[in-house]
């Protein structure tokens, strides 16, 4: 079956679509009431709210799909604020011609990823527009930040050690290879990192800053953090984890892993005395096995990279479009 405009008209066809696909996979007592809104218990701690839209092309790729991505992106944004993700809303814009089987796979993948991240999908919406069988997802996420967690992009302090939770460029390389019809063994790193972040807090690490290294890559993210914090940062090229597959793709296409997008990597800044323990915690968490200390925060401005030949170079944020529709 293909999705048609009638599936978004709000009538019988819409109800059937919701019942047969969305309600079958998203199990939540709140959602099952099918009310106009979700009524949620008052939490202890500050509420953190975020939203993100997902337009990735292709819809399914090695290591993930737009559904998994739409959960991970929003959940990881909450975690980077020090919040424990609790609830998600999910809004779908479907293009007519979309295969219902594909939609169901994506919805099932969202449900599975939400379970993994420990969040409930509590509200949703579906629209159908003209088009060529594509789809877009918006998710909003609500999390709760326990008292005492002070993480912010403006919190870098000179001396902080920078931990990267794994290899650079896997998601970018996967999407690009798919679009270029390149045979490749790359897999997207798309993953929920809630568990990793919670382990850092429960391990009493004095976390200053956490950022997910998404569009624009490490170069862009770190330049933004350095500017927000009024510090500089120095990276060590030899310490940067990059998989062989991504390295090979960069060699062919002239890409820089530093400006490639990721969907399951965190950059974590911790004071020097906590660094070794924080690295151990990240390495032992799911998706953290390739984590490494990649550099240090210093006084001053900008981001520099100590190259493998021993010289220094400036690291600049990504300019231009990079790769459109990567997430």
């Amino acid at each position, binding site marked *: 079956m293909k999705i048609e405009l009638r599936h978004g008209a709000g009538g019988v066809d819409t109800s059937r679509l919701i019942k047969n696909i969305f309600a079958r996979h998203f199990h939540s007592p709140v959602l099952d009431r099918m009310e106009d809104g979700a009524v949620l218990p008052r939490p202890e701690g500050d509420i953190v709210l975020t939203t993100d839209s997902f337009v990735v092309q292709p819809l399914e790729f090695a290591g993930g799909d737009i559904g998994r991505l739409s959960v991970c992106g929003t959940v990881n944004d909450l975690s980077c604020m020090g919040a424990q993700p609790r609830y998600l809303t999910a809004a779908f814009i479907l293009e007519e011609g979309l295969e219902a089987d594909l939609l169901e796979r994506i919805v099932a993948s969202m449900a599975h990823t939400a379970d993994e991240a420990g969040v409930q999908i509590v509200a949703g919406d579906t629209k159908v527009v003209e088009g060529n069988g594509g789809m877009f997802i918006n998710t909003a996420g609500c999390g709760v930040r326990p008292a005492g967690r002070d993480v912010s992009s403006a919190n870098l302090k000179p001396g902080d050690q920078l931990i990267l939770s794994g290899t650079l460029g896997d998601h970018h390389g996967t999407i*690009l290879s798919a*679009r*270029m*019809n390149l045979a490749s063994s790359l897999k997207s790193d798309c993953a929920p990192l809630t568990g990793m972040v919670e382990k850092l807090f429960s391990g009493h690490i004095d976390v200053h800053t956490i950022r997910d290294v998404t569009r624009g890559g490490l170069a862009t993210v770190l330049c933004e953090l350095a500017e927000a914090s009024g510090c500089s940062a120095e990276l060590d*090229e030899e310490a940067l984890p990059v998989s062989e597959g991504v390295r090979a793709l960069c*060699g062919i296409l*002239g890409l*820089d892993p530093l400006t490639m997008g990721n969907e399951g990597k965190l950059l974590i800044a911790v004071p020097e005395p906590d660094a070794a323990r924080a690295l151990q915690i990240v390495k032992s968490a799911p998706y953290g096995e390739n984590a490494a200390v990649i550099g240090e925060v210093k006084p001053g401005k900008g981001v520099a*990279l100590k*190259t*493998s*030949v*021993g*010289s*220094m*170079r*400036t*690291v*600049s944020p990504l*300019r*231009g*479009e990079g790769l459109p529709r990567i997430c």
Partner: protein
Amino acid sequence: MNPEQQSRRKAMADYLKSYSGRPLRLMEVCGTHTSMLYRTGVRALLPNEINMLSGPGCPVCVTPTNYIDKLVEYSFKANTCVLSFGDMLSVPGSETSLLGARARGGHVDFFYAPEQALDRAEKEPETTFILAAVGFETTAPVWVSVVDAVLKRKLRNVKLLTALKTMPFAMDTLCATGKIDGFLCPGHVAVIIGSEAFRPLAEKWGRPMVVGGFTAELLLAALARLVHESSCGRGGLWNEYPSYVRPEGNQKAQAAIARVFQPGNACWRGLGVLRCSGLYLRGKYAQLDAGSYGLDDDHLPDGCRCGDVLTGDINPRQCPFFNQKCTPDHPIGACMVSSEGACRIYCVEGEISK
């Protein structure tokens, strides 16, 4: 990296850092080399005596304005759509770029791989698709497979506007100026045409020609060789990228190129019209050509010095527009547009000490 490789790398880096012989003007022909010399940090090691110049090895940068103008013209024709690699879209023509044309209602789109254009052509038989076939010997085999696929799939609505160029002729012209002491030959091009393709140039002009790769190790090896031989004034050919580049190159690819394309005159920004330096569809395939011959008119925007950048006469910083009037966000010249353009690389990749 094992200790032996590490000490070899250090020795090469030290050699380059401490070079104090006669000043050398060396050219990296390929845009990817320009980028990787910066990114690997190798360029920052070089003393003032080693002056690396960027050459005409960015296909978008050397394409003359009336090639862009012709694409723009096509984009406004009824039932016609121009498809190109993304890099080409922002390059200024004499009136506008392809993106400018699109904003004014022209039909322009981009592809990651030309095969995607063919899928689209199949789905939209009423539209004629003009494919901007730009590149050097490296890209020519891709266009061969596109031509073959168009014929095999019997697509009557696909045409190619070609601006394909071959490197040795351009390097010959640069050698003739006598201003360049040695060349870092383009590694990707050499994979196709073979290292021996550069030997006639080395012998004719008595200059060192070193084929190099793109990693820090390979760049150090190629530059150490190039600096050593240039400083001794020794001409010759050295292949420092032997794991990928064979002396005879990829003969299958060469044969495919020769089957589909024939040499013809081509206009290079900065160098003018060079005999036999272009590739054009042969007679058997001529029905796919969208009028590629004779696009020899190149007028740069007033004051733009891309032509001098592409011949190594100035480095990007010496252009009065560099990072002032001409920036990656508002480029005036093609060298600031393309990700392989020297001006853009100098600007985006940050501070370069030379």
